[in-house]
């Protein structure tokens, strides 16, 4: 499916007091996409979002909305709305007034306003809550009011800055599913910020991994997980074994003192590389018919599987397996060419 671009960031840069917080990022966001900015705390996600929303002026670079540059357009003219992390509900108004706030400002006639607010209440499943004081609502309900308030203006893009950050785990999971449904129903673009990689992988069409104000990788959740572009992404998304190796030729890499067949190509001859092997891709076998031999140094039960650390040569492999091996057991490690992922050397993309 080919979708039109709705937002484009070009060379977008922001610094506070000479500290560069967002560093010349380029990003294409398509219509109806659920796109997530993912990265560790302080990496510039909120700042990026606030520039898109119009609350911060970039120091450099441009923001395009449907092909028009909107750097100098005030927030309320951007056709973009925001759900704030702490909801930012008007505590002195009831649910109805909160949702109707913008419509009143725009002098929307009373009966139309009523209709639109009702539609929103239905969408977020809060019918009958009109008269309730927002302070009397639970966290999840307040969150829904905030979403209803943001959607009632029928924006084309909704910005959500860690909207589930304040909720407990169970409610979080429920709201994740509801948010995804809502996005499908209203059919608008969601730009979502989180530092929870699991949340990002669950909900998004596209994940943007950021670190230190620089985009590390843009891709679908599957790509991001299976084909991390660098050590940072591999490390940040899920558990992984990251080893240093040498790419001898296409489809042949060596690490841990051995040569392995792999499915990667396009490196120069004998180029130093980083190699990623996911813990769940390593099979435990008897030492004789294995690629590598090692000794189990610790075992932790994780519910679905056991997580074992296995010392082999001077590297400690993490392995996830449903079969437990006792500490001190000598075992073999086995993985196929498609389980080996080769990346360019260097910890992350830097300017």
């Amino acid at each position, binding site marked *: 499916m080919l979708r039109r671009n709705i937002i484009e960031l070009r060379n977008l840069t922001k610094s506070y007091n000479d500290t560069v917080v967002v560093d010349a990022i380029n990003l294409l966001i398509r219509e109806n996409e659920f796109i997530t900015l993912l990265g560790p705390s302080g990496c510039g996600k909120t700042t990026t979002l606030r520039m898109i929303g119009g609350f911060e002026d970039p120091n450099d670079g441009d923001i395009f909305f449907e092909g028009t540059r909107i750097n100098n357009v005030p*927030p*309320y003219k951007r056709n973009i709305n*925001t759900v*704030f992390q702490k909801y930012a509900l008007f505590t002195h108004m009831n649910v109805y007034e909160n949702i109707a706030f913008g419509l009143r400002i725009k002098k929307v006639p009373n009966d139309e306003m009523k209709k639109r607010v009702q539609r929103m209440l239905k969408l977020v499943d809060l019918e009958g809550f009109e008269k309730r004081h927002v302070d009397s609502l639970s966290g999840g309900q307040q969150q829904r009011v905030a979403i209803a308030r943001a959607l009632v203006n029928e924006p084309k893009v909704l910005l959500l800055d860690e909207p589930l950050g304040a909720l407990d785990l169970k409610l979080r999971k429920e709201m994740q599913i509801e948010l995804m449904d809502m996005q499908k129903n209203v059919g608008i673009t969601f730009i979502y910020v989180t530092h929870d990689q699991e949340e990002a992988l669950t909900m998004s069409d596209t994940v943007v991994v950021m670190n230190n104000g620089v985009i590390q990788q843009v891709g679908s959740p599957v790509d991001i997980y299976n084909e991390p572009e660098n050590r940072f992404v591999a490390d940040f998304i899920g558990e992984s074994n990251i080893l240093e190796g040498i790419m001898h030729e296409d489809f042949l890499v060596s690490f841990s003192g051995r040569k392995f067949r792999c499915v990667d190509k396009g490196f120069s001859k004998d180029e130093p590389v980083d190699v990623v092997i996911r813990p769940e891709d390593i099979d435990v076998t008897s030492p004789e018919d294995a690629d590598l031999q090692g000794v189990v140094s610790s075992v932790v039960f994780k519910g679905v599987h056991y997580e074992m650390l296995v010392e082999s040569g001077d590297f400690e492999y993490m392995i996830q397996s449903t079969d437990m091996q006792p500490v001190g057991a000598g075992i073999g490690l086995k993985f196929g060419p498609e389980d080996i992922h080769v990346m360019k050397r260097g910890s992350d993309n830097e300017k």
Partner: protein
Amino acid sequence: MGRHSKRAGALSILFMGLGQLYNRQIIKGCILAVAEALYIIMLLPYTLSCIKGLVTLGDTPQRMVNGKIIQGDHSIFMMVYGIIAIIVLFLFVVLYIINVRDAFKVGKNRDEKKKVNSYKDSLRNLSEKGFVYLLLTPAGVFTLFLTVVPLAFGVMIAFTNYSSPNHLPPRSLVDWVGFQNFINLFQIPSLGKTFAGIARWTLIWAFLSTFTTFFVGLVFAVIINANKIVLKKFWRSIFILPWAVPGFISILIMRNMFNGQFGPINKYLTSIGIGAVPWLAEPFWAQTTCILVNLWLGFPYYMAMMSGVLTGIPRDLYEAASIEGANARQQFFQITLPMVLFATAPLVINGFAYNFNNFTLIYLLTNGNPANNQYFYAGHTDILLSWLYKLTLEQNQYHMAAVVSIIIFVFITIISAFNYMRTRSFKEEDMVQ
């Protein structure tokens, strides 16, 4: 009802301690009996004569016999003694009731064949269960004498003719007059006019002085807190200065500044050709001056307080409003003002009550002047409290002063009670973090 409880109860009604003796609580019974005997022998005659004095307020006035003054009855002292005697009698009656209930209860225990407490048991009981009451007793007694006596005294004065020139002890006697003073306040034209006029100005004054300080404070707080303002701390310190100087000094300085003839303000106005303004001499201007000076003294308090409230309003509320297209004015009226009002309404009502009784400012700045010759010992800027002061300390019109103070008391009590209930509901709603 059993035999013992009936008899013990009846006996202890007859004389304190008898019931306890009947219940074979010898020590307790003796103590109670001695207490009643002592009261009857030593205090009762005196109590009765004091209460009689309270009723009559004396009947022999001071006389001159052969050029020598012979002391008569002092009505006011008699009134105070009477009040104290009533309180002592009241305490005795309370003790008597406790005594009867105790005898009855112990008797009932005997009827039900339960154990009767020995003296030691009773003491232990008292120190265990009654410990809090024991602790509270001294404070309770102090309150009775230091708060209830003056309060009762003040209220009673309103029902007498205690005033200069004809009813001022020790020269002459004071009499009870019933509700006559209250009737007079509304029926005697000069009094009624004074009261109505002063009450109206007091309300206008309390409202305007609170309102102006509140809004000017709010405006300054908003301006200082605006992002564009640099040197926030500097401005805040400058504006807080008038508040840091002791009030009466500022007021006296202001009184000189606004002086009609010699004041620098009028000198300056004259020099630039506007001419002197009768700041303190004409009723309207004097009232305006009061409000201006109070504004100058009072707004820093609200400014400081509301700066705090403003910084407590989360920034994203404004951002959320601005996405919806609210401009600066709409943001102020729909977010800032309601949030600040919710947070400070109790203080505003308190401020109203404070200004209602802001004696210091009025008395020091204008002394109630300019005088109003249609008023009963009062001027155009007098508020009820300063009128009260003049009535008592300058004119010895204690009876009318008492009436006015009862009215003020009732009014302030209503405001405070209202405020208290509102404050609680505010807390529950938890408006601003």
